């Protein structure tokens, strides 16, 4: 069937600069560029272009510009170009529209409506270049009280302390599974996490055996509804186990890793036959209640000999705070809350762009709810979904999070341009693909250095912001909403965030 959809992008090639080196042709897995030996020129099929900018960035002559197509339908406030084209695609295929990355829709980004405080004159600011600034964070259950005895100078803590994760900076890499992302991307995250004193999250695709010894010490392993790649060794080699209930990009639904991405190595890691769809059902079919969740949490504590904190990751949705309270009471040591703009390798567009609530509001609601119930100490909160920079991290912590997960930000550090075509498996940046020709483009040493650089840069900035507020430990910022003010927000939004308006 002939497609009635415009090309999304225009490709402009500066013929004077172009040396016909065919680099663009080699770079593009979507097959946009082709060389015509008769004219010795390159031509482009714009219909196939994903807008990932790989060819433009790698063109040695800087001869290529890829920009949004200027073609338009008659302007219509109701029928935007996106709406018209989505509809056409469905008329042509009869299928569910897939997309990748976090929602690109203009929901209010609360980070950009919150400003931070700084010290002036009284309570002077602290110079982080001179003074020690504590970013180290412990994630997990804290006791209600500590029974400490001191005898003859020996201090003894009699309270049983639950296992906690020690993270040197409050930034962890979000769950991205091997299978969704390439081996090199996965290994880069692991390498950078170990180097930077933080953790990567395996997602639900298992942890390759040869990585367990080396990277288990900075791994959080996931148990999701598909239960892929899970055995007792996998659970025990890591520092924490996370039960994935929901994901911000697709709350309430499962996932299908298509058979073509289940390569030999992915099959081995997930422990399923090569080429089968890896289906993660929408719910865990052994969890239909808080009691069932409690059973799985305890089962995971049993299998890991009560040595590891258990995290439960849920998507931020309406009334999730009450559910989270149940999750804490079910025994979770960490709650990971993933908001509306959380990323994905593949999600139905209708779900990604319409289900869930913004992370910022979710953090505040959750923190408040747990405080009101007197159980905030029983779990740590990791916030995820739409964290773009160090100030977002600082604001998340001031709203009540203990730490954040970054997914998209980490991928961007490795080269991702958020073209949203992750589900095609043709990622030209070598990140979201199982094609060895493409994944080989991502050099683990370089990519992990880029990731470590990012963590290091953000950590420095966080210290600067903390020092500016006159705070020398992240602990003192947690849930400290007095350091936040809202700009351009409605009363209800300020109420949910628990912050005052600027100038108040």
């Amino acid at each position: 069937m002939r497609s009635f959809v415009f090309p999304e992008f225009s490709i402009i090639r500066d013929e004077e600069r172009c040396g016909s080196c065919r680099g663009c042709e080699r770079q593009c897995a979507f097959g946009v560029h082709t060389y015509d030996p008769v004219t010795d020129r390159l031509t482009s099929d714009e219909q196939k272009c994903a807008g990932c900018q790989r060819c433009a960035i790698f063109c040695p002559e800087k001869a290529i510009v890829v920009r949004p197509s200027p073609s338009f339908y008659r302007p219509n406030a109701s029928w935007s170009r996106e709406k018209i084209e989505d509809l056409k695609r469905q008329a042509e295929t009869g299928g569910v529209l897939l997309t990748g990355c976090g929602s690109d829709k203009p929901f209010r980004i609360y980070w950009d409506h919150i400003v931070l405080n700084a010290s002036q004159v009284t309570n002077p600011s602290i110079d982080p270049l001179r003074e020690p600034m504590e970013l180290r964070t412990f994630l997990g259950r804290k006791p209600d009280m500590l029974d400490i005895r001191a005898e003859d100078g020996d201090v003894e803590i009699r309270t049983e302390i639950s296992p906690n994760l020690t993270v040197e900076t409050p930034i962890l890499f979000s769950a991205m599974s091997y299978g969704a992302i390439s081996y090199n991307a996965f290994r880069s995250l692991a390498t950078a996490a170990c180097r930077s004193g933080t953790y990567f999250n395996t997602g639900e695709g298992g942890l390759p055996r040869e990585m367990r010894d080396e990277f288990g010490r900075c791994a959080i392993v996931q148990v999701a509804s598909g239960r892929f790649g899970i055995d007792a060794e996998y659970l025990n080699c890591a520092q924490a186990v996370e039960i994935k209930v929901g994901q911000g990009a697709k709350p309430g639904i499962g996932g299908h890793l298509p058979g073509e991405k289940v390569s030999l190595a992915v099959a081995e890691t997930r422990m399923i036959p090569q080429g089968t769809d890896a289906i993660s059902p929408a719910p865990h079919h052994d969890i239909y209640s808080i009691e069932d969740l409690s059973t799985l949490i305890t089962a995971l504590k049993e299998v890991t000999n009560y040595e590891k904190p258990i995290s439960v990751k849920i998507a931020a949705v309406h009334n999730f705070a009450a559910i989270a309270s149940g999750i804490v009471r079910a025994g979770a040591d960490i709650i990971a809350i993933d908001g509306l703009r959380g990323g994905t390798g593949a999600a139905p567009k209708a779900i990604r762009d319409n289900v869930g609530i913004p992370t910022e509001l979710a953090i505040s609601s959750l923190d408040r709810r747990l405080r009101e119930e007197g159980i905030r100490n029983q779990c740590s909160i990791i916030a995820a979904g739409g964290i773009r920079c160090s100030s977002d991290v600082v604001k998340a912590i001031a709203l009540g999070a203990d730490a954040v997960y970054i997914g998209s930000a980490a991928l961007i550090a490795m080269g991702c341009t958020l073209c949203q075509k992750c589900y095609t498996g043709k990622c030209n940046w070598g990140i979201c693909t199982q094609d060895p020709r493409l994944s080989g483009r991502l050099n683990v040493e370089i990519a992990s250095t880029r990731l470590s650089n990012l963590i290091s840069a953000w950590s420095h900035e966080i210290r600067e912001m903390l020092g500016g507020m006159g705070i020398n430990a992240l602990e003192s910022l947690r849930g400290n909403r007095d350091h936040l003010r809202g700009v351009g927000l409605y009363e209800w939004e300020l109420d949910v965030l628990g912050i005052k308006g600027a100038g108040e």
Partner: protein
Amino acid sequence: MAKAFVLEPGVRAGPSGGMGAAVIDAASLETRELNDRLRELMLSGARRVQISNVCGQRYIGTRLYTPERLKMEIEVLGTAGNDLAAFLSGHKITVHGNAQDGVGNTMDSGEVIVRGRAGDVLGFSMRGGEIYIRDGCGYRAALHMKEYQEKRPVLVVGGGCQDFLGEYMAGGVVIVLDLEGEIHDASFIGTGMHGGVIYLRGIVEGSQVGDQVDISPAEEADMEVLEVYVSRFLERFPEVEMTKEEILASPFTRLTPRSKRPYGGLYAY
């Protein structure tokens, strides 16, 4: 009509010989305490343990993973609680009594024998090892069972199963013998199935199985598989008053997935 199978009155099918087996009396033990004892015994070198007076304690066998892959044989007297043998790593557990929900949840390897019935979500996401249940089981048995290379889980149920048997099944072998002779009445069998095989003794209607399932009579190769596992079943449960020949004389139905990619055509791309 299958013969009923019952224990002789007054005779309790007990553990086979107590020689050298360590003993735990679970009467006053909470779940965690019981599993503490089990782990201590394993680490101190015990290879056979008998636990008496079990009354709903959970996760028996779960905390027995060691990097050295130590293995134990465990006899449970009483009713095993939820998640018996969850994540089980190579051990053998025999329950002289019933087991509650979640037997063999995400089990990796080893063997579980239940001389009684099992509750819901039996063999959930099981990826290896064998489970034998003498009587019937509850809902959602063998959900998302999967296999890889040499790991091919086997679940044999002597009685009947309830709805959602083998949903999302991705590998392994499930055999439901229905020896109690009730007409098999489960629905939604094998919905979303994309691997493995289910054998049901007797007949199943098309309306009882998911759209993703092919129904066919068991063939010669299937009968060979059935013979192996029915033999093993009877070895484990000598109290069952039927012979292998009697069981295998009935027609068996084979359920297999139509595709290993049941939802491949769902998307617009």
